[in-house]
């Protein structure tokens, strides 16, 4: 497509596009042998769909905001909206943004013809379907034929797919809602009754052989676009220059032309074209297929034909020698002086169009918080490393002076740290990058980056320093890294959501917590796992089940090696949240994993005083005490281990299994005290031999110091984060705080760890025990997916988090308006992690491509037409893969009062099991193998197994 010295063999590539399509049609294409349609681009459509005979359809589009939709993504407002949507990349690179602001964003490169340019925004084919198979005059004259070949004739209703109100847009654009009826009138481009397809008769192009050739604005955009180039292309696209050709189709233009003595269609008159297009404005040797009159006054009108200077753009002097023209007032005045009685003011109008290359004005940067989440003390006890999720760094603290001495940049969202036994190397898990950074502690530099599984969290190095075990929370497995080669040698199956690991003192056993419960039969209590690995063989030897519990996070071995302690939640998700007695919704405590695999559970809650979000635990060197952080209540509990064990030993088996895990009256017997900490304490670590422990106050950018002799707070270490508290930060604090929930029992993060889900189905409403159970849903990237709640009853996040939460969760302490606003703002910024099955820009694999065809299919295997309302893509279309409407897809089950549910968004659907409104489908396959017997949730019962497998492979890429 692009010039780079490559001539395409014909000057008028769009016309060639039509010609090729016509040849293809006449060369024997027959009914039934339809090829996969591809996108051809607006310039091809314009060959026929413009001019008076066709109602100037293309010109109407060109003057609309649809044509500027891609360019609009370069605006500062777009960047703000992207941030609110959890989009971590520039909007023009995000499939989420491009899905509505461009055409064919979800298509693969081979599905776009060379004539297609994504920079043309929302083009014809966005609404009318990819045109390669119907863009033929003969076919277009037969509407039925054309529609069989992919032509769509959308209704106003379908505009909803992009134009439905979005919270992110409302927040930034301050309620500039679209009037759909008015907009529909604006974009209407009806075909006249006596329509006639004919190629426009432009004036003859007179070639100047010695001049360079026109390459077209899209070619310029290859380099002159994006934040680093001040979005030059987009700036032009949003200007009136870009509409210069299209305006010639207006009545006003005709009137001006007539007044000038120019009869007929101004679009075909040289007198008009020489100022309203680039192609007729300057001499050039020829016009490459990538250029077009339709782009109006583009770059080359002012800067000269670009085929030669574009190759030397980085060297301005060479570029000038190759035809790059300097732009000054004279260039503008050549057209604008006394043009149609419209004054041209210099410097104002000049400034309006200019786009100099200069350093971009730095937008006000958001403060970058550290957000330390986990800590590790170096083996020699001299330094403390803190994994700082917010700043993508590891902060090094000297434990002698208790001062920060270094900060090392690592990957995105660093989570945990582990040292080699000799202390020379530190490993950092980066949960957004799926990597482990290897740090040379002497030089404090990252020396290597090791790829691991999805979303790595906890890590541990074996005592020999031979292997590193990395817990991949999202892929639910454990990478075993051979440290001599720094390569992964095997992958161990974990539980669901492996989170944290601890190695026993003798080095023989590694115990791993898993934050999600196993899949359990519908309406049965949770069942989580602690995975025990024999470190000598690197194999899993035991999976201890913890009944009734989930949210297993921190873990630590007792120095004796007889047992390990781990934090846990016990969610009462099977009874309505109106039931307050016996711990209400979530109780919090500790689990004890004995060496023989037995598990005990105790609570850290006391009546009326919950211990929400227990996150990490350590055991003192003498084994007498355990310290547990409560991230949602800013406390550390000091537990007397011997008292705790005594309670267990004096109880019988029934009491240990059924009574003690639910006994709110026991904690006071072994919880000696609480130590207040700064905000949101998460990771905790002990400095061996020094009688001190350190706590990462993640939302305070500080590390709290605890004296283990007195169990008192003994100071803080500043990590150097900003002092200002932004709205987002405030919202993050509210999200992680139990201060507002009834009995201070849990925070938002309790059910949404890392902004995601804990995989449970809840009975919330007081409509009967077990009636209308609903599966928890992720908060990642949800802002524009309103309405919320499975029944779709909450139109906004502020309603979801405000009045609704007040009814069931916060009750007597609802959020203040400021807190609610901040909370909603923070939730919106929770990023949706990259899709691991299809990195941005990657092509689909063959299986994924076949699955995409299944997803978009319109016919069954035996040739029956699938009704529009029963096709996957009707309700699940890009970019959000939800139409945000309520549908009945036949998933009503006995405990449901009705079967109408909000269409869930599908991006990253692969990591949000279980599925359906009540979480009854454990895997994507089960949605259709078990729960779609009558083809109400798409037509799937005719599929072969490999077709279903392919469909699943495609869904995993969304």
């Amino acid at each position, binding site marked *: 497509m692009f010039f780079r010295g490559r001539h395409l063999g014909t000057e008028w590539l769009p016309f060639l596009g039509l010609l090729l399509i016509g040849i293809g049609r006449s060369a024997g294409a027959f009914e039934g042998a339809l090829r996969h349609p591809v996108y051809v681009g607006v310039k091809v459509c314009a060959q026929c769909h413009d001019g008076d005979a066709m109602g100037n359809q293309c010109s109407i589009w060109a003057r609309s905001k649809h044509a500027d939709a891609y360019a609009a993504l370069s605006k500062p407002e777009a960047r703000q909206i992207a941030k609110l949507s959890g989009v971590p990349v520039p909007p023009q690179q995000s499939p989420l943004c491009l899905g509505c602001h461009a055409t064919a964003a979800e298509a693969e490169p081979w599905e776009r013809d060379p004539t297609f340019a994504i920079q043309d925004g929302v083009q014809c084919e966005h609404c009318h379907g990819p045109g390669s198979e119907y863009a033929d005059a003969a076919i277009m004259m037969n509407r039925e034929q054309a529609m069989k070949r992919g032509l769509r004739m959308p209704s106003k209703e379908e505009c909803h797919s992009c134009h439905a109100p979005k919270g992110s847009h409302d927040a930034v654009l301050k309620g500039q809602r679209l009037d759909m009826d008015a907009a529909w009138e604006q974009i209407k481009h009806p075909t006249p009754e006596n329509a006639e397809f004919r190629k426009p008769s432009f004036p003859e192009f007179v070639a100047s052989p010695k001049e360079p050739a026109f390459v077209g604005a899209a070619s310029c955009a290859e380099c002159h676009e994006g934040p680093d180039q001040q979005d030059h292309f987009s700036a032009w696209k949003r200007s009136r220059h870009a509409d210069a050709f299209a305006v010639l189709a207006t009545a006003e233009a005709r009137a001006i032309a007539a007044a000038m003595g120019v009869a007929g269609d101004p679009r075909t008159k040289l007198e008009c074209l020489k100022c309203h297009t680039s192609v007729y404005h300057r001499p050039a040797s020829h016009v490459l297929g990538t250029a077009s009159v339709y782009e109006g006054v583009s770059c080359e009108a002012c800067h000269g034909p670009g085929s030669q200077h574009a190759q030397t753009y980085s060297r301005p002097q060479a570029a000038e020698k190759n035809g790059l023209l300097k732009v000054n007032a004279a260039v503008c005045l050549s057209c604008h002086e006394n043009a149609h009685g419209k004054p041209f003011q210099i410097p104002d109008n000049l400034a309006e169009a200019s786009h100099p290359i200069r350093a971009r004005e730095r937008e006000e940067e958001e403060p970058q918080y550290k957000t330390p989440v986990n800590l590790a003390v170096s083996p020699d006890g001299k330094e403390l490393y803190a994994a700082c999720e917010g700043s993508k760094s590891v902060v090094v603290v000297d434990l002698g002076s208790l001062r920060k001495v270094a900060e090392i940049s690592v990957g995105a969202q660093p989570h945990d740290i582990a040292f080699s036994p000799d202390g020379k190397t530190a490993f950092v898990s980066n949960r957004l990058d799926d990597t482990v950074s290897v740090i040379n502690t002497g030089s404090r530099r990252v020396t290597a980056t090791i790829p691991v599984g999805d979303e790595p969290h906890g890590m541990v190095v074996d005592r020999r320093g031979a292997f590193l075990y990395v817990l991949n929370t999202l892929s639910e*497995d454990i990478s075993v890294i051979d440290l001599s080669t720094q390569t992964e040698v095997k992958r161990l*199956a974990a539980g669901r959501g492996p989170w944290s690991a601890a190695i026993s003192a003798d080095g023989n056993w590694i115990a791993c917590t898993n934050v999600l419960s196993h899949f359990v039969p519908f309406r049965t209590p949770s069942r989580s*796992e602690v995975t025990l690995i024999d470190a000598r063989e690197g194999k*899993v*030897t035991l999976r201890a089940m913890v009944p009734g519990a989930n949210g297993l996070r921190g873990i630590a071995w007792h120095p004796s090696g007889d047992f390990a302690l781990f934090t846990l939640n016990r969610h009462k998700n099977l009874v309505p949240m109106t039931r307050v007695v016996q711990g209400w919704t979530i109780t919090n405590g500790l689990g004890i994993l004995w060496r023989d695999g037995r598990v005990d559970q105790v609570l850290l809650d006391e009546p009326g005083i919950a211990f929400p979000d227990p996150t990490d635990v350590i055991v003192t060197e003498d084994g007498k005490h355990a310290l547990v952080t409560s991230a949602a209540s800013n406390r550390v509990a000091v537990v007397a281990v011997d008292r705790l064990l005594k309670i267990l030993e004096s109880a019988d088996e029934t009491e240990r299994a059924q009574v003690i895990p639910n006994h709110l009256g026991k904690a006071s017997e072994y919880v000696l005290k609480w130590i207040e900490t700064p905000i949101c304490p998460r990771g905790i670590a002990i400095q061996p031999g020094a009688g001190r422990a350190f706590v990462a106050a993640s939302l305070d950018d500080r590390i709290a110091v605890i004296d283990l002799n007195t169990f008192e707070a003994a100071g803080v270490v500043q990590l150097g984060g900003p002092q200002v508290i932004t709205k987002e930060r405030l919202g993050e604090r509210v999200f992680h705080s139990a201060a507002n929930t009834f009995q201070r029992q849990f925070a938002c993060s309790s059910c949404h760890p890392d902004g995601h889900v804990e995989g449970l189905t809840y009975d919330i409403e007081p409509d009967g025990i077990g009636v209308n159970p609903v599966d928890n849903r992720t908060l990642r990237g949800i802002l524009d997916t309103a309405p919320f709640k499975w029944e779709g009853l909450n139109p906004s996040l502020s309603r979801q988090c405000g009045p609704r939460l007040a009814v069931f969760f916060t009750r007597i302490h609802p959020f203040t308006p400021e807190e609610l606003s901040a909370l909603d703002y923070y939730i919106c910024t929770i990023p949706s992690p990259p899709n691991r099955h299809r990195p941005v820009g990657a092509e689909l694999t063959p299986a994924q491509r076949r699955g995409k065809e299944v997803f978009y299919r319109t016919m069954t295997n035996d040739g029956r037409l699938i009704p529009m309302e029963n096709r996957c893509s009707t309700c699940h279309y890009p970019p959000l893969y939800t139409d945000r409407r309520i549908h009945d897809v036949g998933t009503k089950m006995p405990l449901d009062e009705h079967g109408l549910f909000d269409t869930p968004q599908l991006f990253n659907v692969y990591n949000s099991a279980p599925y359906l409104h009540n979480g009854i489908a454990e*895997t994507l396959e089960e949605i259709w*193998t078990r729960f779609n017997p009558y083809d109400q949730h798409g037509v799937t019962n005719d599929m072969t*197994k490999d077709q279903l497998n392919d469909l*699943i492979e495609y869904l995993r890429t969304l």
Partner: protein
Amino acid sequence: MYSRYQYKAIGGPVMRSVSRMRRLLLRSAAVLLLGSWAGVGSAGESTEAQPEPALPALAFGQSVEGVSDEDLPYVYTQWKNYTVADGLPNDHIFSVKAVAEAVWIGTEDGLARLDKKTGRIQCWKEADGLPWRAVTSIDVDPKTGDVWLALFGGGLARFSGGRFDHFHQLNSGLVNDVVYGVAVENNHIWCATTAGASRYDIVTGKWDVFTEKNAPMEEIWNYNVTYAPSVNKVFLAVWGSGCLEFDVPTEKWKVYLDPDKEMEIDLYRDDGIIHVITTSASFADGALWVSAYFGNCRYDGRHWRGFYAHETGLPSDFTNFLKARSANEAWLCTDKGLGVIADYATDTYVAYYRNADNPGGVAKVSRRGRLLREVPLEVSIAHNFIIGVDFDGDDVWVATAHGLSHGTGKGYYSGVKKDADRQKSLAATIQEKATAP
């Protein structure tokens, strides 16, 4: 008069009709080409000395010059059998897999693990979490220690750290729940099912299905799958489709079919795989061994060799399963006894039988169909219907229709032995001939 050539039993729906005239013509051709020879009866028939058969000049390996009747293979004489009485969940043993510390046993109703150190047997039935009662095949991932179970009608299960994970055609990409065989290949788990082969990537979670659409399977009823790490290939035994070879690095398929395309007779000896209705394949030391319901065969990359019971001394041609110990030795699980191609180089075979009414039995040593020795066994294998076998160092474990048998291989040696030096010389000679241009 003995049959002049080997008729293959008519196979099910793939049976081809052959005209009477064609049969006559073929018979005549066979007589002219192949001559005639005598066959050896199955266990229980007369063991009187048979006349020396006039064997045809067959492919490499058939020359037995310099080998006397005193050159004999190792015979397992120490057998111990396990049944329900010993703690197994069921006597119908479908599969056995020996690892360093234990033996995993798959039965018609449950899974068992025999701890080699303590001798203790631990069982799991459906009530204990086993997803499906019938365990047809077992493989163990050498890296992780996870045990993978093929469940007949129940899909696939992973048993790890005491937890069963169940994969079936409704909750995963497994093509069918009737799984005959399972094999671990690097980070993949292969399943031989009745509706094709499935491959599961344990790292990415991706499922692949192989059927006639994307593999050279004329039929898709996969009976067995095995992985050969030495050549990084996976072999499928497919009912009606011979043996398929999958090259792991290139993901290319190769198929071994019977070139003469005759299912009723072996028209041309050793022209290819012995029959397309294969039941298992096993690769060792450069040789591919394939079992069928109508004989067995071996391929060294250039030459095929078929094995029929009547000309070898093996118990039967109906082979349920086969496992190769080396390029020279393979064990055959037949319906009438346990057969061993004990020494390919000298055409030496051992057949183990159990008496009908007592635990004893006999091991018959033959060379090219001629009985050399009968070794009485005080305790023999548990039953004559053999379903599976596995090697455990020098020991062997045998899955039978009525119990698990453990053969202690004390003093085991490969090949035949009378004079060790002579044996080495013979082996060297054979190898030299094999590699000669």
